[in-house]
């Protein structure tokens, strides 16, 4: 491989296990849906459960102390990964969806009033649409949408125009589109939002593990993502929020550990981040996420970005040479997502038929139905890249597509 490529597939058990007899080996091209886990992460969790599992923040015994130290340690690691000002700005959630719902319900629910406006983009994942629709309905706020062009690039002029209403309180936008791969100019959009007196909530689900992310350099007021897409376990995620904003937000869920004092007459709450963390948290998952952050740091997000970028260029070239294939999502600033349609062949058939050759891609609307509507397709096929992918994976994809075309002819 050329120097811009990483060689780390061997660290991923799923990707290296011997296929069942008669089955082709796995070519995993669905990292945008969920990432595979390196051995380091799996070992960390398993070892935690086998050697020092206990509850956190509640016990007066050392098993619990150890668990708490590992648990809180991850908060520091994540704060460092994101360039946050303090680990107190790091809230553990169940995932990106949970984090976006938290911001929408708590920040949106307490700050929005009838007539206020929320700006979303045409590229959003349902997780960054529906929570805003729910809070808009409750508060009487209205939703405005930034359109995109035929490449999948947001129309910043339209965005500027929307901001002039003077009623915009919140801009919620994805860092990277999961359906198209478009990387949005968050810094510029944040500056414009701030100048208009709005806060910016960034859905970082597809950003975080594919490029270095510095929330302060980006100007993000909130940044939400999931562990499972960054090589960590399912069941946990992160919401970053500027402390000043978190401090004025009411609790989201009620329960143990988020309270200061409970009586039936009056309950008082902890400071952030604990105010937003009710109940026994995802302890082992947080430990696993900590290992995933360590792993990411050891590989280097700049290297991952370079690797995926080189693969994206390689894959784009390969797929562009296939007659009857149309790439959906051709923004100049693009992450490792290859969305496409084939003339006369439904994306779901592509997905199932590629699977028969061991190639796992995703077909469907990718929880981004407004994007499908914009490009006037019912669904797309999507191959998405991770640091473990290789040129050979993309060669297999291209060959698989040509084979399908032959069968459908």
């Amino acid at each position: 491989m050329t120097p811009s490529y990483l060689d780390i597939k061997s660290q991923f058990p799923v990707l290296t296990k011997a296929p069942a007899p008669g089955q082709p080996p796995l070519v995993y091209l669905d990292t945008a849906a969920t990432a595979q886990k390196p051995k380091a992460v799996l070992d960390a969790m398993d070892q935690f459960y086998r050697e020092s599992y206990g509850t956190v923040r509640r016990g007066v015994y050392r098993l619990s102390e150890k668990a708490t130290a590992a648990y809180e340690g991850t908060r520091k690691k994540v704060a460092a990964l994101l360039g946050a000002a303090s680990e107190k700005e790091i809230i553990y959630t169940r995932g990106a969806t949970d984090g976006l719902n938290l911001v929408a319900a708590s920040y949106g629910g307490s700050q929005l009033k009838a007539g206020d406006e929320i700006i979303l983009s045409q590229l959003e994942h349902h997780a960054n649409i529906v929570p805003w629709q729910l809070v808009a309905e409750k508060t009487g706020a209205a939703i405005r949408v930034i359109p995109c062009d035929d490449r999948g690039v947001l129309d910043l002029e339209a965005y500027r125009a929307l901001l002039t209403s003077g009623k915009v309180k919140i801009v919620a936008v994805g860092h990277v589109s999961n359906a198209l791969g478009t990387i949005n100019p968050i810094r510029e959009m944040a500056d414009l939002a701030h100048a208009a007196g709005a806060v910016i909530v960034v859905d970082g689900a597809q950003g975080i593990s594919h490029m270095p992310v510095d929330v302060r350099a980006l100007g993000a007021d909130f940044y939400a993502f999931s562990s499972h897409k960054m090589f960590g376990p399912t069941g946990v995620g992160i919401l970053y929020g500027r402390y000043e904003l978190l401090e004025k937000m009411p609790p989201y869920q009620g329960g143990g550990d988020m309270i200061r004092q409970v009586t039936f007459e009056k309950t008082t709450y902890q400071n952030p981040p604990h105010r937003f963390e009710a109940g026994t948290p995802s302890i082992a998952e947080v430990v696993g996420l900590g290992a995933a952050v360590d792993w990411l740091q050891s590989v280097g997000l700049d290297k991952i970005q370079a690797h995926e970028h080189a693969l994206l260029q390689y894959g784009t070239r390969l797929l562009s040479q296939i007659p009857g294939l149309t790439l959906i999502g051709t923004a100049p600033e693009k992450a490792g997502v290859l969305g496409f349609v084939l003339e006369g062949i439904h994306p779901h058939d592509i997905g199932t038929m590629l699977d028969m050759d061991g190639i796992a891609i995703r077909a469907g609307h990718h929880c981004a139905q407004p994007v499908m509507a914009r490009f006037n397709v019912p669904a797309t096929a999507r191959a998405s890249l991770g640091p473990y992918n290789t040129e050979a994976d993309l060669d297999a994809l291209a060959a698989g597509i040509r084979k399908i075309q032959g069968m459908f002819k």
Partner: protein
Amino acid sequence: MSQANELYQQVILDHNRNPRNYREMPGATHVCHGHNPLCGDNITVYAKVGPNDVIEDLSFQGNGCAISKASASLMTTQLKGKPIAEARALFGEFHEMVKGNLDPETQPNHLGKLKLFEGVKEYSSRIKCATLSWHALIGGPRCRESPVFPSRSGGAFPPS
């Protein structure tokens, strides 16, 4: 070659390419639209039912994947001329087969050519494609408002 690999056989690909009974039906006694928002499959089923509950004519139109189109096409060829009760029973068998609960090689059935869809059981997300036109005809969650022949299953939980 696994069962799944056998799914996209020439018969299915042929019915996809040249769907049978692919037309509107001006004098239809029943029309139902089936929609699977998950993949954007859209199918309209037309039926003409005679006095003694016999399906005298059956056709469809719409967009969808090869599985849903071939399934709709084969459905029309298999059910035309049959009484509703028989259509209902056949759908029962078809549904159990694609869910993996009926092995057409070892268990008694009347599936005939419909056995071609057995491989769908390996892909639970594709079951909806294979059954879309059937649900439109017979009823079920994909077409709860206005199936051609409302399902009798009823009960506390919508069938799935």
